[in-house]
């Protein structure tokens, strides 16, 4: 009896645990919101494909904390981003700026599209020239026109069927 009761109580234990997101929430919800919006644009360098805003790595926690501190000290979003780029390079930005270094990255899709388009264009042009004009003999032409001028056989019964329906 006592054992069953204990088991039952143990089953209730999980309800006491909470799935907390990040513990280190600032006392100021407005600032926290601003920080999170900015942190979404920052790549977690430890986990690479995750933004700092929802990464659980220690490094991301540190970055969030530093962002909070800088914001409290009155730094603008741009200043904070510049500070991060200065230390960790442009690869911390999910949206890298267009400049000389990142130009190939930005232009590559368009260049590839252009090359593919040109390839397709020439291929089609070549194919068209290969087909050439069809030359019909006199007999063929007569046969073709007689076939075309013949009243369609299927048309009338089909029309009747339609009117019956």
């Amino acid at each position, binding site marked *: 009896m006592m054992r069953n009761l204990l088991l039952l109580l143990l089953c209730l234990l999980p309800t006491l645990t909470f799935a907390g997101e990040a513990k280190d929430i600032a006392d100021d919800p407005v600032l926290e919101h601003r920080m999170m919006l900015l942190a979404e644009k920052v790549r977690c360098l430890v986990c690479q494909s995750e933004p700092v805003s929802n990464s659980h790595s220690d490094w991301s926690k540190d970055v969030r904390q*530093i962002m909070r501190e800088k914001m409290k000290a009155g730094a603008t979003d741009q200043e904070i981003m510049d500070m991060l780029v200065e230390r*960790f*390079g442009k690869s*911390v930005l999910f949206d890298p700026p267009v400049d000389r270094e990142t130009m190939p990255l930005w232009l590559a899709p368009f260049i590839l599209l252009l090359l593919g388009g040109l390839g397709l264009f020439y291929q089609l042009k070549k194919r068209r020239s290969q087909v050439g004009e069809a030359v019909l003999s006199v007999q063929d032409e007569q046969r073709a026109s007689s076939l075309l001028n013949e009243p369609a056989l299927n048309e009338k019964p089909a029309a009747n069927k339609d009117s019956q329906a």
Partner: protein
Amino acid sequence: MMRFILPLVIFLILSVFLYKGLGRDTREVPSPLVGKAAPAFVLPQLYEPTKKFSPQEMLGKVWLMNVWASWCGACKDEHPLLLELSRQNIVPIVGLDYKDKAEDGQMTLNKAGNPYTLVIADADGKVGFDYGVYGVPETYLIDKKGMIAFKLIGAVTPENLREKILPRVAELQAK
């Protein structure tokens, strides 16, 4: 003829790119700090917290700053190499104990040996952040003028010591 050559050429170009990509570590992000002045700081020493250290003290010398921690696994791998390097007395190594408890850091060095000319404690990781540390261990090579000449992300290995670090140390010391 063109039908066979063109796909072959495209295949070869693609192979070169893929092959290059194979040997690349995408975790290794090039540091924008290389070629710039090492950020200034003042930190307490690990063994004597009342004594401070600042990188200005090393001006005129070529030195290594090795970022490590007692909780870092790869640091244990590079530790014997650092000990060996310090025995050779080629270049001073300053150890930066990153986000660590002083007792833990001391205990690790007492057990495994201390390869460092000097150990400093960056308990809250603020200095590490200024140096762009995101994965320990990391090793910085700083020249006589206090500029960061090279940064190694990850553990020191016999290969990168021989091929990347030591040649640069020799070159900078000769300047």
